[in-house]
């Protein structure tokens, strides 16, 4: 039974990673590498918490978090799509800005707790029927509404990307913008819409931390999860369905140090804390070793598109 409790907790710990990873997948699929995920998550976390506190309304809190993420995404999109700025440095500066903005806005929120209305909205509940599935039911379907929203988003995104005309166009924009342009796809529109939507998901990932997982506002509440999400995109080879598994696997790594203490192992917690980062490194190496076509990043990733240079 301990293992079921552990996996149930791994899903909870993996959910912020899932949202951020999905957001970054969308962004990268239209050819833009946004390294500002950490900043976007922090902006979402603080906005979600503050609005939750002010309105006691969970829907407003989620909307606020998504809007804050999208706002960060708008800055990123304007600089990298319209002004063709270097994506790596823009993403990094967005993280600095997001860290600063969230630290600033969150200053007065320290020590506050989530209102009861919001807290009870995010309480775990069993889904009738599905929760009766042996083992999986206890792990996956005895969770809170945010986590269910994560499953749905991942599945819908998979369908959108691989089964719809817009999803196809979006992938063409990321793979070969010149071809997309020639076939009449409005590149900038596609890039803007997807970057904004992806960034909104990153903001929701942050809000999960401050509203549900912790649940309180702490400075740098994300603790590097934004960066792990960027790596998880590679781990899941830009596929939303694989992102689910990757996020929960890393969620498990995230809590393993904490859990291991119970078993009185001689390994230090600080060494165990290294595992997610080491695992990411190993994944990066493995992926670069086996360069299969489908595992490669979108062709146009991190190159600004400029029509005259076709």
């Amino acid at each position, binding site marked *: 039974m301990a293992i079921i409790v552990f996996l149930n907790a791994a899903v909870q710990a993996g959910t912020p990673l899932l949202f951020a990873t999905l957001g970054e997948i969308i962004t990268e699929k239209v050819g833009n590498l946004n390294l500002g995920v950490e900043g976007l998550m922090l902006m979402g976390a603080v906005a979600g918490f503050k609005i939750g506190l002010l309105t006691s309304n969970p829907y407003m809190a989620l909307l606020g978090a998504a809007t804050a993420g999208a706002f960060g995404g708008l800055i990123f999109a304007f600089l990298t799509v319209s002004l063709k700025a270097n994506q*790596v440095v823009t993403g990094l*500066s967005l993280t600095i*800005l997001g860290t600063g903005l969230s*630290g600033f806005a969150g200053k007065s929120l320290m020590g506050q707790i989530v209102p009861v209305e919001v807290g009870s909205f995010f309480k775990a509940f069993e889904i009738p029927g599905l929760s009766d599935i042996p083992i999986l039911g206890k792990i996956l379907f005895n969770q809170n509404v945010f986590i269910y929203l994560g499953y749905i988003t991942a599945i819908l995104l998979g369908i959108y990307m691989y089964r719809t005309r817009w999803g196809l166009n979006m992938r063409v924009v990321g793979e070969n913008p010149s071809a997309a342009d020639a076939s009449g796809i409005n590149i900038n529109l596609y890039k803007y819409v997807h970057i904004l939507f992806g960034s909104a998901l990153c903001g929701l990932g942050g809000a999960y931390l401050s509203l549900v997982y912790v649940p309180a506002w702490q400075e740098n509440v994300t603790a590097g999860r934004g960066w792990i999400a960027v790596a998880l995109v590679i781990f899941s080879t830009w596929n939303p369905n694989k992102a689910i598994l990757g996020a929960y696997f890393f969620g498990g790594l995230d809590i393993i140090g904490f859990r291991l203490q119970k078993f009185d192992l001689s390994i230090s917690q600080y060494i165990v804390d290294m595992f997610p*980062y080491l695992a*990411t490194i190993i994944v990066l190496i493995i*992926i*670069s070793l086996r360069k299969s076509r489908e595992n490669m990043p979108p062709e146009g990733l991190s190159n600004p598109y400029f029509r005259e240079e076709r």
Partner: protein
Amino acid sequence: MIRIAARSEVSKNRNIFTRITAIIMALMLSALFIVFLGHDPIKVYLSMLEGSFGSVYRFKETIISTIPLTITSLGILMAFKMKFWNIGAEGQMIMGAFFASYFALSYPDMNRLALLIVMLIAGAIGGGLWALIPAYFKAKYGTNEVLFTLMMNYVALKWITYLQYGPWKDKNALGFPKIPNFTSNAVLPEFLGIHIGWVIALVLTAVVYVFIHYTKKGYEINVIGESENTGAYAGMNVRSIILEAMFIGGALAGIAGMIQASAVSGTLSVEVTGGVGYTAIIVTWLSGLSAPLIVVVSFLFAILIQGGSYIQTAFQIPQSAAQILQGMILLFVLGSEFFVKYQIIFKNNRVKKEGM
């Protein structure tokens, strides 16, 4: 109808003018933000200057923050010249500090000059090796270096946390998790009132400048940065050049880590870098990959940092406000590069130069 066209040539004056305009615009936007906080922006800006130049002590503090930024940025410059996006200077600094601290703690009674030289070399090797790991995988298998170097930062940080709370914990600190202070033999001496790191920083700036502009290796690094294929076609051993340059770059960051541990904190701790490794990325980019400009930009950033912490007490403006300012300046400068490289043309063929 508006059309965007690439400029055929980019003049140096235009480049500098555009960047300065961008910084002024960022400062103006920040001024609005300060007004929003209920303060007079002119007063706040002036007291930031006051905080970094107001007294001999404060001026020294500003120089002391300039030192690690300069040296670490020089290290990042080596990588960025090759379009190797090294985000790992933070970890490279930490490992440099770790290697140096090993000798400081193991041989506290060694002759001062000998110990300091050993620590300097150890710091360089520690940082260099830490940079070499992602460089090897990038050169050999094309592994993504942005994420690799970034993850290495966290591994390094957890490693020091482990030492600080575990094997290296000071037994005389009454259970407080800290690593023992260095003996005075392991602390860098002062020169003209400030620890000697500033001399090291200036010497290294000159060395890196000469290396990039006047040596064969420096030339090869430039060529690889332009195009790896060109380098390979010209018979260069691209892999070994990447490895060597990354080792040197990491070594520079390692030296900065050693200086911080030895001269500033007097021991190793998880806060030894103070985020310099990340700020240095920005400094390097803003300096346009020029070693002498790195010194200037580092100094400006030191003013921003010192002034930022001064207004914190003077106006009750939180530290994060300084971070917001940094982020905005950087985003404006990034955006402004568009106006250096491109021009906007309206349909009637009159070339309109954007004022930004």
